[in-house]
């Protein structure tokens, strides 16, 4: 380490340190891991959405040369079902979570029924076809509302009417009065369709058991290795937490789906112990679609009341949220807290009432998918506000402006049980977006084109979301069963190299780069001397992982705090060496100097060397610069923004062309603009995909019709536009970096932006609402009445 002044790294759009391995084929993803003696698992999955298993004959499969063993659900009864960590709403007696494999009854297509272990994956797959299962099909329900109706098929005896939890927030009486007495009431049934996260790398697990020590190692494509270790040991296997090491290799995208504990983790561990050899399982794409978690699946009736001059007076919401056949790790909280408590969005609404009925259906489990509850909330409020503007014949930008929470009212309590919104200033983001898109001219162009029989639509979305959900005490009050702080240890080695370990980890976000930028600046050391270590429970402090746009606001802040503790100790040590008072020391430009005597100084490198050797430490000081922080934020952060899209719809074909997409996002201070833009691009693409393309649709028999990438339309490059990204910057007061989070904002802002534009384009045809995705078929019909 040198004492020369280093260039500030925060705010610089440097390229990512993660990339060299990934662009040269040296990435190490789960399926790239090979172990000595490794066996391969293939899973027989239920073809029925609901059926009783009468018998399973595995003899032929077991006899196939190359097959090591075959296991069924009854073999694994000595381990517990998977835990659900977020029973939001306080329910207890109807928590039905999956086992590693079904035992007596299958409840969704794709549920594991048997596992074959073989010498290679091809033999294992061949053997799957030789297993004979006798099923007795049962009646099926896939719709979250129909599941609650009298006579609906029942999934679990302990959940009458398939209800997981009935949850509500707000002021029911006040809202009922406001709606009943309003000048204007608009109402819609709004469906937020089921989606599939579709990380390009599917999920999977590799487990190895060491019989000499009774220790497991699990490689798994996960966003939260420490949490997986905790859940698998303490809850599923009932073994000491220390008997499992979890490693997430390079993770090829997660988008929420890789937060959770899954059956393959359990059966790979259990079987590796049973057979004494490592076991590998990697999903193929159709397995990922059928059996890993899905997102959204809301059916909502919404009413919004207001005055003729565009002021909103009330919002009444009733949502049926499908959670699938069993509860995934945090599913109940996503459908309630993360959705219902932010349902008012960016608006000051005096009377709000929301009811959520979360239900079991014969479908794959639903849990957090990029945005997790907030996209459903922002879609709902932004769609119904647009509907209100259309009803009044008022410009949708103006209606939004009239109802924004004023900047003077932050921190703002929306009355729905959140901690107050930390900060916000919504009108400047709207104004900037209107200016960037050229709104006034666009409205004129729209009128001109309409006269020519062309249908331009302009869609506005003003959103707010919740990042870095915290503090733990508040989350516990929401039923969250663990912590929501994050860890960071910072160590300065003898050579001055900085090693940071954290429970936070990337799966594409580039936080190795961002974290190193932060730590380099905080310590005044060269960026290249900072190493970020993560993703392995061996060698990193316990942490809760990466989801909910929390890595920077929570994990990054933990790093800053550890680095500040390091600086304090460095000052004490420098003061000792310089025979000065620690309070008189200044840490700047890589040097610790005595106030008023800049020539009396030690470089940070000198102090690192001194502390690392530790030969003559002052009384009461330990050798080494090594500090750890477990940072529990005082509040969430609340990024916001306005997105505006311009589309043209073509009545002859029903096609939609997205001509412009302008986003103004306020994610607080920005550490690396290139990375933040990338996060927003990807987020917007996923929301746009929900609006126009994607639908994880089940038929009435519970068959997943969108079961492959031929049927589930994640967009390719030809289906998306360029994105025009800019910002306003309202630093978060919650953390010392002033950052909020950018991973989900794009998704939370975009689906309704596109839908509002499509519906605006179709307004001459009398269209006031359309369910997503706005496919050419729907549009073609809509233009024909």
């Amino acid at each position: 380490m040198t004492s020369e002044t280093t260039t500030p790294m925060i705010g610089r759009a440097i390229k990512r340190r993660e990339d060299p391995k990934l662009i040269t084929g040296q990435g190490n993803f789960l399926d790239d891991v090979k172990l000595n003696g490794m066996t391969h698992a293939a899973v027989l999955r239920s073809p029925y959405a609901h059926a009783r298993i009468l018998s399973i004959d595995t003899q032929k499969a077991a006899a196939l040369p190359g097959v090591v063993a075959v296991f069924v659900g009854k073999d694994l009864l000595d381990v517990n079902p998977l835990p659900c960590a977020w029973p939001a709403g306080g329910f207890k007696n109807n928590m039905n979570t999956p086992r590693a494999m079904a035992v007596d009854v299958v409840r969704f297509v794709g549920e594991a029924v048997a596992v074959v272990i073989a010498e290679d994956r091809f033999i294992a797959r061949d053997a799957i076809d030789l297993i004979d299962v006798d099923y007795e099909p049962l009646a099926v329900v896939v719709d979250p509302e129909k599941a609650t109706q009298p006579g609906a098929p029942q999934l679990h005896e302990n959940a009458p009417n398939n209800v997981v939890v009935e949850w509500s927030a707000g002021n029911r009486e006040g809202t009922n009065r406001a709606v009943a007495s309003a000048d204007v009431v608009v109402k819609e049934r709004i469906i937020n369709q089921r989606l599939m996260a579709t990380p390009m790398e599917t999920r999977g697990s590799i487990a190895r058991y060491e019989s000499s020590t009774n220790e497991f190692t699990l490689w798994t494509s996960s966003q939260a290795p420490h949490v997986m270790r905790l859940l698998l040991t303490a809850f599923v296997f009932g073994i000491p937490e220390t008997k499992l090491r979890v490693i997430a290799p390079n993770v090829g995208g997660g988008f929420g789906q890789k937060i959770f504990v899954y059956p393959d983790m359990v059966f790979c561990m259990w079987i590796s112990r049973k057979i004494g050899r490592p076991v590998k399982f990697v999903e193929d794409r159709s397995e990922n679609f059928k059996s890993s978690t899905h997102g959204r699946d809301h059916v909502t009736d919404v009413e919004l009341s207001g005055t003729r001059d565009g002021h909103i007076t009330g919002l009444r919401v009733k949502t049926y949220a499908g959670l699938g056949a069993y509860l995934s790790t945090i599913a109940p909280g996503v459908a309630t807290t993360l959705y219902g408590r932010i349902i008012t969005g960016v608006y000051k609404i005096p009377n709000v009432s929301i009811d959520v009925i979360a239900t079991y259906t014969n479908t794959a489990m639903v849990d957090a998918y990029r945005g997790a509850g907030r996209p459903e909330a922002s879609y709902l409020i932004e769609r119904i506000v647009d509907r209100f503007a259309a009803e009044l014949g008022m410009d949708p930008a103006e209606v939004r402006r009239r109802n924004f929470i004023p900047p003077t009212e932050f921190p703002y309590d929306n009355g729905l049980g959140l901690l107050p919104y930390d900060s916000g200033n919504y009108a400047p983001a709207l104004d900037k977006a209107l200016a960037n898109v050229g709104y006034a001219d666009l409205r004129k162009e729209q009128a001109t084109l309409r006269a020519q029989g062309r249908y331009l639509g302009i869609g506005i979305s003003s959103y707010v979301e919740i990042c870095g959900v915290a503090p733990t005490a508040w989350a516990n009050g929401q039923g969250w069963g663990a912590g929501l702080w994050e860890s960071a240890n910072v160590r300065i080695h003898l050579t001055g190299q900085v090693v940071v370990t954290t429970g936070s980890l990337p799966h594409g976000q580039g936080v190795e780069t961002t974290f190193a930028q932060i730590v380099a600046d905080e310590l005044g050391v060269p960026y290249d001397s900072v190493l970020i270590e993560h993703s392995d429970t061996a060698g990193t402090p316990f942490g809760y992982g990466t989801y909910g746009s929390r890595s920077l606001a929570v994990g990054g802040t933990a790093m800053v705090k550890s680095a500040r503790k390091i600086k304090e100790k460095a000052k004490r040590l420098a003061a000792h060496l310089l025979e000065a008072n620690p309070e008189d020391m200044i840490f700047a430009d890589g040097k610790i100097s005595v106030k008023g005597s800049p020539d009396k100084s030690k470089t940070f490198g000198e102090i690192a060397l001194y502390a690392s050797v530790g030969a003559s430490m002052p009384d009461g000081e330990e050798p080494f610069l090594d500090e750890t922080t477990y940072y529990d934020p005082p509040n969430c952060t609340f990024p916001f923004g306005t997105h505006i899209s311009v589309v043209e719809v073509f009545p002859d074909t029903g096609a939609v062309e997205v001509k412009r997409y302008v986003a103004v996002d306020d994610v607080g201070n920005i550490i690396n603009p290139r990375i933040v833009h990338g996060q927003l691009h990807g987020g917007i693409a996923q929301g746009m995909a929900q609006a126009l393309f994607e639908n994880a649709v089940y038929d009435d028999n519970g068959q997943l019709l969108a079961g492959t990438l031929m049927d589930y339309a994640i967009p390719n490059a030809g289906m998306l536009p360029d994105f025009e990204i800019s910002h306003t910057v309202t630093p978060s007061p919650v953390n010392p970096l002033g950052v909020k989070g950018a991973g989900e904002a794009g998704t939370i802002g975009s689906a309704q932006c596109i839908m509002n534009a499509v519906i605006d384009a179709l307004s001459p045809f009398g269209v006031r609402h359309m369910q997503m995705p706005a496919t050419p078929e729907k549009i073609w019909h809509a233009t024909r009445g």
Partner: protein
Amino acid sequence: MARITVTVNGKSHTSDVEDRTLLVHYLREQLSLTGTHIGCDTSQCGACVVVVDGQSVKSCTTLAARCDHAHVTTIEGLAQEGNLHPLQEGFWECHGLQCGFCTPGMIMSAYDLLQQNPNPSDDEVRHGLEGNLCRCTGYHNIVRAVQYAAAKMRGEEVSAPNV
């Protein structure tokens, strides 16, 4: 079982492969070239794209036995003498990747695209890469990355767009 001789990234291999072995499994399992990925089971995603005899192919839909005497280039063979290929450089400079799982296939498809069209429009890049899915980037920066490489391969001065 078939015996094949294949040149992969300039190195000749003679191997016995099952008749049903796909090129992607041959590369990954037998040659341990794991830079080529598998992202789907229906030839939609393009994570497995490699170049065979000068043309990009989806190696998940190509039998290894068909590649007897073929010349195969994978992502591992693109950098020459330690120098990144302009496409690799472009993806790095322009933040054309996030998780990196689709990136090898995306780069190999773009390699073929630029062989055929050294001066594509943005629209031609987008349509030329329709066989490759990326879930992270929204493609915006992938288009920039390919244009960066195209310009560099034409001998022009290039830099990543400002953000």
